[in-house]
């Protein structure tokens, strides 16, 4: 089983469009949306949810009535998650669940409570099984949820004897992206020909290298700025990363997207198909 993760660093370069097209072209891959924070793949692939499971992330501290307001937890917490006062309380968003306060409280007035911080969906699409999730807005632990999604996708792939798992990652280079990349067989980097896009691509390639994951690059909308596209190719040459293909800007894509008519057609879709054939 091969796991291919689509990443970009920068948001909005076309990861989801390209992953969805790959899924449609593959026909039998297990699809995993690893952007659990602002997922979009389901909008195109229209999964039918077969099973929904709660995601219980790490525990969070909760201060009970036994608190004597001694202030030790406040002093020890490095995440500014303890709100002092006559009655102490915990800022849920800031609490990382490290349990230092729980273990240190002399009054045993702190409990660690599990909280449901999202949902995981096991679904079926016209192009194969799909695992996706939704983190409750404002929550943390997106990396943990991504790992859960991947675990389930792997399980489904084993059950169905699928040869490919396609993963759509979030933007950035932090924990959810690291969790999406870990142990993948290949990272496909979707880059756009802008100054920001080049900077972000370099950083995300370095991230993949850091975790020893091989990369290839797709330049999306390359003709919006052909000079910048050439610079991307130069940067890739210096970094020893292959540019697998270039996809032209196609004004009909936003139109097809607004109507949710998928799989996409037209010149961009044909270029994505060519890239897919060389990737396969």
């Amino acid at each position: 089983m091969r796991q291919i993760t689509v990443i970009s660093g920068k948001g909005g370069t076309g990861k989801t469009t390209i992953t969805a097209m790959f899924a449609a072209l593959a026909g039998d891959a297990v699809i995993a949306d690893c952007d659990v924070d602002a997922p979009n793949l389901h909008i195109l692939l229209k999964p039918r949810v077969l099973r929904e499971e709660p995601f219980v992330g790490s525990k969070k501290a909760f201060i009970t009535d036994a608190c004597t307001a001694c202030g030790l937890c406040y002093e020890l917490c490095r995440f500014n998650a303890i709100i002092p006062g006559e009655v102490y309380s915990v800022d849920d968003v800031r609490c990382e669940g490290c349990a230092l306060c729980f273990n240190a409280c002399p009054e045993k007035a702190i409990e660690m409570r599990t909280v449901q911080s999202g949902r995981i969906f096991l679904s079926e699409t016209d192009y194969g099984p799909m695992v996706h999730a939704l983190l409750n807005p404002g929550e943390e632990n997106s990396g943990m949820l991504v790992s859960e999604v991947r675990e389930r996708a792997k399980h489904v792939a084993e059950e169905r004897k699928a040869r490919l798992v396609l993963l759509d990652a979030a933007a950035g280079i932090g924990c959810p992206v690291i969790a999406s990349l870990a142990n993948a067989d290949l990272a496909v980097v979707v880059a756009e020909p802008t100054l920001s896009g080049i900077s972000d691509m370099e950083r995300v390639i370095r991230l993949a290298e850091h975790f020893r994951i091989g990369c290839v690059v797709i330049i999306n909308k390359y003709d919006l700025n052909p000079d910048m596209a050439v610079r991307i190719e130069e940067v890739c040459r210096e970094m020893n990363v292959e540019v697998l293909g270039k996809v032209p800007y196609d004004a009909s894509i936003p139109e097809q997207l607004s109507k949710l008519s998928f799989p996409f057609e037209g010149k961009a879709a044909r270029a994505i198909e060519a890239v897919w054939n060389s990737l396969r």
Partner: protein
Amino acid sequence: MRIAVASGKGGTGKTTIAVNLAFFNRLQLLDLDVEEPNDRCFISGEAKESPVFRPVPVVDQEKCSLCGKCREVCQFNAIVVLKDSTVIFPEICHSCGACSYFCPEEAITEVNRQMGKVVEVNGEIKLVYGELEIGEASPVPLIREVKKRAGKTAIFDCPPGVSCPMVESVRDADFVVLVAEPTPFSLHDLKLAVEVVKELEKPFGVVINKYGLSFDIEGFCEKEGIPVISKIPFSPDIASAYSRGELLFAYKDTFADIYDRLMEL
């Protein structure tokens, strides 16, 4: 007033709006997207770098009795106790300090590990940005470091998404501008972002970027009673200027108007 520019979905135009809003109104700009900072592509000048560290534990193997207390209190599986030594994985470590606090032998001390840097750029306007080290998992402590440099009036360019980095970025703002584009993806993520800013009880409004694409996003704002602060047209000129790292001089008045509008709201 501190104005956070956020979105949910990436690539909707946060950077374009934040940079131009700051530049044409002569405001301090903070780039809180420390994973992928891009405001520096638009604002140049003399730069001052300060490294940012986080504490990570190291074990004095001589003093360590292999009791396993550190492993027991570590919630992140960052510690393994072997037959003859205790091993810590600093990349997984959240720097909470529990292991060193509870070690009965005082065998664990903390050393500084660089997690990134804060850069202050003295250009036509002042820009402060953070840059996270490659491989570091959590941007949140670095976002806090960048925010410490915020003046009373500033524009915060926030990271995409709606999880902890975005929350940390908007929580000290007085107003949140959500940048959306007329696509089903953006509408979906805008709804999530709206949930977050409502939860944080922040006043907010929407700037519609790439206005002119056929999908309707205004209907949602209208229905929810969310003020639409401005509509930036879908234009090849804007995309092209952005791609080269240029400011939108042709839209100077638009950004002056947006700021006036924000002051009224």
